[in-house]
């Protein structure tokens, strides 16, 4: 679905809970794309290009996507291997499961790993800063057009993906805050990012632009 002339494309955007859709919307507009807010699961299921974002409480978010039918749409587009960028909590709900101390259960299961809380204490009892807040350097493991080596992105999160034994090709980039964790995970056309590209200045706009480029798969 092309729109807006030039290389502008229509991008379906969806919020899985309490996120700041307006920033994402404006970032896409400034790149010449046309964001469309999705409200139903079927709209998400079929969009050629979609960005899923969210912040806040994992449990509440999961109830929300189950009750609203968004969950089916999110699963359907992952199964259909449609290009999808999942940001923050949006990426976490796509993982295999949750064990964050408050909420245990299965995730949608299309991205690798279990979601855990960042540790509050180190092994010697020292206090560790949680949430992870600010600009962290992202280390590229598998090169892609999405980012260049040495780029910093804005993170704001309390939970991370524990990729465990799956720490292989599917983890495209990593970051470090109290522990090393996946910053970008990818399976087929589904890309999950732990940081917020819509708040990450030029690096973030470049990532969004690369994701929306017609050549991106």
């Amino acid at each position: 679905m092309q729109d807006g002339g030039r290389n502008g494309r229509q991008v379906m955007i969806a919020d899985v809970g309490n996120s700041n859709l307006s920033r994402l919307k404006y970032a896409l507009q400034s790149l010449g794309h046309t964001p469309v807010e999705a409200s139903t699961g079927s709209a998400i299921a079929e969009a050629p290009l979609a960005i899923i974002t969210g912040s806040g409480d994992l449990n509440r978010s999961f109830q929300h996507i189950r009750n609203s039918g968004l969950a089916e749409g999110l699963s359907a587009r992952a199964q259909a291997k449609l290009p999808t960028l999942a940001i923050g909590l949006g990426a976490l709900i796509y993982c295999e499961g949750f064990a964050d101390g408050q909420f245990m259960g299965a995730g949608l299961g299309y991205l690798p790993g279990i979601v855990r809380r960042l540790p509050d204490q180190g092994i010697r009892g020292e206090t560790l800063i949680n949430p992870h807040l600010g600009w962290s350097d992202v280390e590229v493991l598998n090169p892609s057009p999405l980012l260049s080596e040495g780029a910093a992105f804005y993170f704001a999160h309390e939970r991370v993906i524990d990729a465990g034994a799956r720490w292989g090709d599917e983890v495209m980039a990593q970051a470090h805050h109290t522990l090393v964790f996946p910053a970008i995970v990818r399976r087929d056309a589904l890309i999950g990012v732990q940081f917020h590209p819509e708040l990450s200045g030029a690096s973030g706009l470049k990532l969004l632009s690369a994701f929306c480029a017609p050549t991106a798969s």
Partner: protein
Amino acid sequence: MLNRRVIPRLDLEDGKVVGTFRYEGHLDPSDPVQHARLYQSLGADELLLWEHGGPEQGWTTRLDLVARLAAQIHIPVVLGGAINTASTARELLNAGADRVCLGEAAVERPALIAEVAGLSGRARVMVAADVKRRMGAWYIFFDHGRRPARKDALQWAEEAARQGAGEILLTTIKKDTGSRAGFDLSLAHTMANELPISSAVGGDGRTSVHFAEAFECGVQAVIGGAPLHEGVVDLPKIKALMAEREIPVRPPSIEEALDDIVVGGVTPEAPIPPTPAAPPPEAKTPKTSDADPEERAPAQEMAGEDATLILGAEQTDATVILSAEQADATVILGAEQAEAIAKATESTGATVSTAKGEIIEDALDNLWEDTVSGAAAFSDDDDGPTHADDETTISDAPAFVEKADTKKS
């Protein structure tokens, strides 16, 4: 590595920025969006906007301003001041604020923090208080230091962290006489070592060294206020010194920063008067300056005053650029404009430097030179002590690299 953040703070009254600014005459000094864009282009890591009006003049009556900020700023924006209820906080977070900063209301009633954090996550809640040092402890004050809250700041900070704050900002109020300029390093050190969450300090930072010293105490963020706006201290210089001292800092790149200002195609009206609208697609091919006079109107209009023209990456229309040059405006260019200019000058014989990098950097230099009021603003006060003070960092500040993310409890 988690980079340390330099956060310019803009103080607002009824939606208008108050204070003295080195850029006056170049942009509308009362418009928060223009300041925010300038700081974004200079490499600010985040922006804090504090509204001093009461709830009746507060942020909820200015959602249009929040939307304009959201549309033009691509780094995190924190809104503070007059946020007294969870519903107000939620409204602002939904309208485009990335974080809210709770002040007096969270000192009076820390449970408010939990109400906001429960809904939006701890990462989106900052809390802040002004403090004064008394007998080896810090106490919270309201109303610019006039009204004591009778609360120990660090005890409150710990309570705020328990309630779900993601970051704590304590700002020392300048003492009347005899106090040394700079941040309260003892406070910075204590916060960084005792609080389980990210800490930020504000205060009278007047040199790059002051900022670096505060970061070396372990705080995650330092807030820059009046001295930054007035040009007493300079954001790119702060970051350069941070890098020199091996404080983790987001790499600043002039070109990247300029690319960051993407102007075209955003719905809320671009509010910067001297910025011409993005040229329509068909006008994108570079034109020479003898094009239709109609097309030169935007730049001609701003010729009346000493304008600054900040162009987005897509604005490659050389006509606009060249007429701005003729109008003696300062032009900040991205790489594409530089190329467009190079082409245009070939055909018109105008004298504009054509080397890409030079244009960009020259333009930035010009902006500084033109905008700094008086030589004092860029005096050696900034650079001189930078090196002289190198060794005088407080001795108990821990080695930076080891301190990266951990601290002793």
